[in-house]
């Protein structure tokens, strides 16, 4: 049982055209930079990507959009990407925008073996179109099905060779749920350690969910909105 892969190219080798992929991260924070670069290099296309955002024009999933590698994007917010907007408005790209909590919970549902969940988000809006509505104790909820992704690609801070993962700060975001949800889960980590080096009480994603792991290189960790302290008003 060896889960350790050499690098991103190796780890994504069998992701082929038409695959459904989840990618962790919120904005550019906690995104699997190495795997995205490998997918860009590999020029695999016709992908369906499930990720909260679509990156920016020249970083993150934006890099795959530039090469038109995506058939469909499922996200909650795509506001920082001009190429995305162009492909969407021109009809080149199929887009499903869903509430952020629904996105997170549909990942969680997959990881927890729940076929669907109920959420009030989107009731009475166009998000509810075609969906089953059910009332519990006087409140309406939408039935939302668990995602079904071929691959989940996540980024963690530390990981061990058995696949246990620890995320850092808000770079955690969607990564834990996606790690649980993939049929095959690929984790890239800033630091790969031997089993026993991580405190078993502090692990965010137990290794059972992770099929492949490698230590990433050259993390840029780009900041989208660098904001520093100033006096109020």
């Amino acid at each position: 049982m060896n889960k350790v892969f050499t690098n991103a190219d190796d780890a994504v080798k069998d992701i082929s055209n038409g695959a459904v992929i989840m990618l962790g991260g919120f904005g550019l924070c906690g995104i699997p930079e190495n795997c995205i670069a490998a997918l860009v290099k590999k020029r695999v296309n016709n992908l369906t990507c499930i990720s909260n955002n679509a990156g920016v024009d020249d970083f993150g999933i934006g890099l795959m959009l530039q090469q038109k590698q995506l058939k469909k994007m499922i996200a909650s917010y795509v506001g920082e990407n001009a190429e995305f907007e162009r492909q969407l408005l021109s009809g080149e790209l199929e887009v499903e925008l869903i509430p952020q909590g629904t996105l997170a919970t549909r990942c969680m549902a997959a990881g927890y073996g729940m076929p669907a969940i109920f959420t009030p988000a989107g009731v009475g809006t166009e998000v509810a179109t075609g969906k089953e509505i059910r009332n519990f104790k006087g409140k309406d909820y939408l039935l939302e099905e668990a995602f079904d992704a071929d691959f989940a690609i996540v980024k963690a801070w530390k990981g061990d060779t058995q696949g246990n993962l620890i995320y850092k700060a808000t770079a955690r975001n969607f990564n834990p749920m996606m790690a649980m949800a993939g049929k095959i889960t690929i984790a890239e980590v800033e630091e790969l350690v031997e089993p026993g080096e991580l405190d078993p009480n502090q692990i965010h994603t137990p290794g059972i969910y992770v099929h492949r792991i490698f230590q990433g290189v050259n993390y840029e960790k780009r900041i989208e909105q660098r904001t520093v302290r100033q006096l109020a008003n």
Partner: protein
Amino acid sequence: MALDKYQIAQRIAKELQDGYYVNLGIGIPTLVANYIPEGINVILQSENGLLGMGPFPEEGKEDADYINAGKQTITTLPGSAFFDSAMSFGMIRSGKVNLTVLGAMEVSEQGDIANWKIPGKMVKGMGGAMDLVASAKNIIVAMMHTNPKGESKLLPHCSLPLTGVQCVKKIVTDLAVIELTANGFKLLERAPGVSVEEIKNKTAGKLMVEGNVPEMQF
């Protein structure tokens, strides 16, 4: 005189109570954090996975792994906790967040809100807004009373795609503080020097005015 965005934030801050867990949306709502009244303890929830959001970092201390829901670099405070997005929206859906403040493009008399899409023009997505408005017990909208064309944003019915229905409890604009009631908008306070007449003129939905409407106090 109409309020500026800082004053809108300042007025909203007066709604905060000790021990509140608060989610502040992008834009004017974010500014509310600057005006938390002395002596009360408010904990900010950032839906990307942080409770106890602190101020922006000092120059040179930005860390890409520490951001808020607006993707801005932030810091933590003593007592902060990180969590994943599922738990974040879990606490939102289960009503643990006491107050949500967010911006809007339109609000209707029924308390419906539209703030995520202009068909054919703007496609940014709803982010966490739909989850927040579907679940928060108390929702305050921070916005300008009219759009850049001078058209009222307080309408009998929203014309844009909805974010949520019958959820807004209060609106604070550059002109007024307005409560949502079973009978529509109710004027609670005027911006200093702004007349009831002006507010009425700039409110397309039905506006109830009872007795003498006081000016906002800061």
